[in-house]
């Protein structure tokens, strides 16, 4: 009996609705905590804290309402994650951000393209190199020449 109940709780907590309610509640609490240093002001002269406190309180209410509703309805639907592509895309963006000014456009593009293509099977090395080359040229023409962005090519 006990085990069954535990499994039920686990299903509820891992459901889409319960998780989103939890996220909103936590965010709201964080926003309220951060806003404690802002002056509230008065109705006549709203201080910098007035609006943030209203918004984060309302967000917290919504979060709790979603939690309650999920619990009452017995939400069960779990979100389906296949995190590998999302992870690789995030890595690709971060790699690009960190290498663009330090290592130059060529290496940054190569990193971005390689990591992105790793998210797609099958991986093809020659195609990746070729595409990187074409894209470096493209971004040079579009962004370097037309928009005059200060892009540096090599380390």
């Amino acid at each position: 009996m006990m085990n069954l109940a535990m499994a039920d709780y686990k299903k509820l907590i891992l459901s889409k609705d319960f998780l989103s309610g939890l996220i909103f509640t936590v965010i709201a609490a964080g926003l309220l905590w951060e806003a404690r240093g802002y002056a509230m002001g008065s109705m006549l002269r709203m201080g910098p804290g007035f609006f943030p406190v209203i918004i984060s309180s309302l967000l917290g209410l919504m979060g709790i309402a979603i939690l309650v509703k999920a619990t009452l309805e017995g939400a069960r639907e779990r979100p389906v994650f296949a995190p590998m592509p999302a992870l690789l895309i995030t890595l690709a963006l971060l790699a690009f951000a960190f290498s663009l000014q330090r290592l130059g456009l060529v290496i940054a593009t190569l990193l971005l393209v390689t990591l992105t293509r790793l998210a797609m099977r099958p991986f093809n090395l020659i195609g990746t190199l070729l595409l990187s080359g074409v894209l470096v040229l493209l971004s040079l023409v579009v962004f370097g020449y037309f928009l005059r962005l200060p892009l540096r090519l090599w380390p």
Partner: protein
Amino acid sequence: MELFTNLAFGFGVAMTLSNLAYCLLGVTIGTLVGILPGIGPLATIAMLLPITFGLDPVGSLIMLAGIYYGAQFGSSVTAMLLNMPSHAAAAVVCLDGYPMAKQGRAAEGLVMSALASFVGGSIAIVLVMTLAPPLASFALRFGPAEYASMMILGLVAAAVLSQGSLLKGLAMVLLGLAIGLVGIDVNSGVQRYTFGSWHLTDGISFVIIAMGFFAISEIMSNLETRTGTQIVKASFAWGDLIPSAAILRRAFPSMLRGTAVGAIFGPLPGSGPTLASFISYSLEKRVARDPSRFGKGAIEGVTAPEASNNTAAVTGFIPTLTLGIPGDAIMALLLGALMIHGITPGPRVITDHPELFWGLVASMWIGNVILLVLNIPLIGLWVRVLSIPYSVLCPTILLLICIGVFSTSNNPIDIVILAAFGVIGYIFYKLDCPAAPLLLGVILGPLIEENLRRALLISLGDATVFVTRPISLVLLLCAFFLIIGFIITSARRKSAS
């Protein structure tokens, strides 16, 4: 006639060589990007926004509007040939467009869809011209209390109509409002939610948020479900591109019905083109003599939603330009773009920047004509874009987004923020939390706070001002009844099932 002098003035603005070029460029690039599978008009506009920041306000708005129509046409092409809707409104086009393409009638479907968009768009432009100026002069009487109430109505409508859970929609709106707060408070100079980061004192650009939520997270979820999609083979010879008189006769009334539906739902806050498409499709099914034809390639199933879609897209400019209240996330992006150019959206736009308003109206017409005369002959070329493999497309799109984001402030930190919003957007997508209400909140957040502050200052701190001023009260009641109505209909649906 004042209308005609204004229109002539607008054409004078829109017909300058540079503005014509921006319009042409916008429609073409918009079509090109909008055709890419998985990239809808919203993502297209978000991706291409940085390009327009270098232009003058009029040119930039003209180009963005062009991108919008182009992207809508482009996503119809994808919907029909791949059976793959890149946004909600295109899902309607799939219903009959894809069967048409499978029957070898792809050319007919696409040409009729462009024609329907043109008919709807043209009528909608007349509506914009006649309705916007009086609405703007009515709105001149609005004080800060009315503005704050109207924005609240807009946000509530966005949450209610986002299809899905009302609570999640409202929570996303509130989260958006909170994100909009990041940066230095203009009144007190206090840094809010910057977490000690110097870079966040200017706030987070809505461009980065839109790209993260609508482009990056789209790509992430596209990549995990990607299976080989088959493009329907289609012939686009010249002969196929001229629709027969019988088809035209059958489709024309449906275009007009679609236009009527679009004109009603386009300017309403929160509804926009998506709702208009769905409603006009079900209307067609209801008025048809033989409803069983639908879903099997009925031409009315394509032309009515397309006319409705484009009408709603164009009439959506009415509240955006006259009241400064965007109806959907796309209009919110355009509004944000205007604010970047230093134009405060509101009823004064038409009188203070007539070149912007009338130039845009005239360019809408030009854009719709360009779409018709340029894109139809080029359909064969556009279709070839679809056969580009995703392994080439995806890195290219990511690189363009990265450099676009980088170009907004020449700081790679923005790309890190972009990645963060991509991940957040991906998680919210998985949890069925709609992203469009959040974007609306981000853009309207600072405006609501400012109007709230002013309204309370004028009323000497009396909060009842929002319910004692009649217009403000009506607007708030609308928001209230929207929520009540939603709760009742969803409760009824639940007890029925």
